[in-house]
């Protein structure tokens, strides 16, 4: 609540009047500071995620500290670590279980592109399976970089219509074509 609004309320200058706004603005304002992340932590990046959640970096400062361990409760998927071909169907299942609207952060080189694991077992980037909104460089990225990605998502959601499904047309290699 900004200062003018507070002042108006304190002085009861609004009286019985009604505030009008756009529904998008209200919803986005609520969403931006209450992103609920689901962390699909597979490897080294997950350890840096732990550091981000711990008190030094404190992801709560950005309103994203309500870590959910069920994708059905979350709207922000953080893929932290290498995703192998064996994990791909699991990643897809997790993404499919998340309710709309949902955002995806690809944390680190492996999740974004396979990293230096260009071999028989590693998926060359999770965007072959799920749509990605923000990629973070680094192996692993520092906690500041992850916080930056969260802020990036917050900015992004302001620009989008609040009540429409995101990325309905995305087709990954595991989706039925």
């Amino acid at each position, binding site marked *: 609540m900004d200062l003018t609004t507070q002042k108006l309320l304190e002085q009861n200058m609004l009286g019985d009047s009604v505030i009008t706004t756009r529904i998008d603005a209200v919803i986005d304002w609520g969403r931006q500071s209450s992103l609920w992340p689901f962390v*699909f*932590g*597979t*490897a*080294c990046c*997950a*350890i*840096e995620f*732990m*550091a981000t959640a*711990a*008190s*030094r970096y404190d992801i709560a400062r950005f309103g994203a500290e309500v870590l959910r*361990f069920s994708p059905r409760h979350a709207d922000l998927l953080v893929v932290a*670590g*290498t995703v*192998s*071909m*064996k*994990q*791909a*169907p*699991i990643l897809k299942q*997790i993404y499919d279980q998340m309710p709309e609207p949902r955002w995806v952060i690809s944390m680190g080189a492996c999740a974004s592109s396979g990293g*230096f*694991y*260009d*071999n*028989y*077992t*590693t*998926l060359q980037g999770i965007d072959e399976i799920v749509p990605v909104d923000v990629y973070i460089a680094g*192996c*692993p990225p*520092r906690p500041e970089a992850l916080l930056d990605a969260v802020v990036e998502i917050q900015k992004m959601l302001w620009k989008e219509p609040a009540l429409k499904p995101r990325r309905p047309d995305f087709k990954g*290699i*595991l989706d039925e074509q």
Partner: protein
Amino acid sequence: MSSETFDFEAFKRAASSVEVAGKMGGMPVIRVDETELFRAASFLKERQRYTMLLEITAVDWLTSPKPPSTRFETLYLFRHEDFARTVALKVAVHDPEQGVDSLTPLFLSADWLEREVYDQYGIVFKNHPCLKRILNHLQFEGYPLRKDYPIDRRHLCTETQDMMDELGPLIETEGYDLANDNLMVLNLGPSHPASHGTIRTIVALDGERIVAGASEIGYLHRGFEKSCETHTYNQIIPYTDRLNYCSALMNNIAFAKTVEEMLDIQLPDRAIFIRVVLAELSRIIDHLVCLAAGLLDMGAQTNYWYLFNPRNDAYDFLSKLTGARLTNSFMRIGGMTHDLYEGWREDLDDVLKKVRQGIDETLRMVAKNRIFNERVQEISPVSAEDAVSWGFTGPNLRASGVPYDLRFADPYYYYDTFDFDMVVGSVGDTHDRMMVRFEEMLQSIRIIEQAVERMPQGPVNVDDRAVTLPPKEEVYNTIEGTMNQFKLIFEGVKVPAGEYYGAFEAANGELGFYIVSDGSGTPYKVKVRAPSFLHMQAYPKIIVDYQVADAIMTLGSLNIIAGEMDR
């Protein structure tokens, strides 16, 4: 490892067709005929008391310049019960589809080790109870570690296995009937908050009690061993960081040490002492994350902050030193990238002070806490005998009361001259596994303090132009320096042809590297003996008869690191 007391003559009488095939470092390598393998192994175990099966792997000699008579060979490493001696058995495999005998009736650790060889090389193990892929998914075709398998051939995985082929028989042997006994089958993982990585365990529950369990691993199989075959020795160092990413530096050191032993070079003393300091600091931060996460799993959240914050302070020290918080890649063959920075001692002292404070505060909260103790005491104990047979090493083995630590059994890097104690538990339950780690951190602090005091001045790299890069002023100003740099970067450090097994007491246990060199700058084969792989194998067996909530604590106390387990 000394070898003088291995009774070869008695061994020969037992298995008729054996021959000494040479030595690997100090370790005798004995060649056994396929048909004699089982007898030889049981003789080693029963009569010679080689009670731990350390490792099983295979070598594909297809592209070797000097191939032996058969394309495939399997290799078995056995460790004596005195932990000072190791012996290797080699078996020439004439037909991988016919295969060799399984050692599962003799050693508990053989099961997954053999499955891995089958998965990666396609060598069959006769009479194995459940021979199926373990690291790769079931839709995978071909055997990736065979030399004719291209490194980038991927296979799409569209579905996960249901695991009932493993769980079903286990339920039956426990005397239950899945259809009629009203058991509940529950998946723990692969994406589970307490699995600390992607590990899947499927359990059958009778009420809250676990009746049977089976684990599926391989979700973080990243092809470390195949990638090694296309990189030079120094290029492999960043890959080793990502094995046990909670103590990356320690993996660097273990790998570099093994290659240096193959090259037969002696590091300058300053480099050795720096390595001791960094290895022990890594042990501390590894145990910190294990205990912080373990306590968090049982709801003791405050301790998570108490233990994770000093870890962050250690990160600050490491990033100042190496430029990276987690994956440091600081070591090189023959030394390390550069010397310590000015003022490192004050920073390190500060880190150690905070670590000690974190441990003190946590122990004050949990050590005599009734809730904590009742949650962890007498949960999933592992007997000393079983721990050895499972191939446990490190804190998990010592928790079971087996006094084995490579820093004592086969001291390297002057460990025999440091004043510190081996931490040994008594019953091997979850409580012991956690408490051993608390105490080990304090012992590591003692070692670091002594190493810092004793650290001499001098170079941190060997003075050998075939191993160490020349100084930059030489590279830019002289043609010899430029050529030297070019050859070392492009061709790598040339390691004499041969094979070697080097072991290191890492945070989780014995981290071993079995390396085959063909004389070039790229290894012909690298196999990691990963402690977590063997610890995980025991997990679904030791949680039986306990509750789901206990199983979560047990997993945390074993400290399974997926990167190291799946490689």
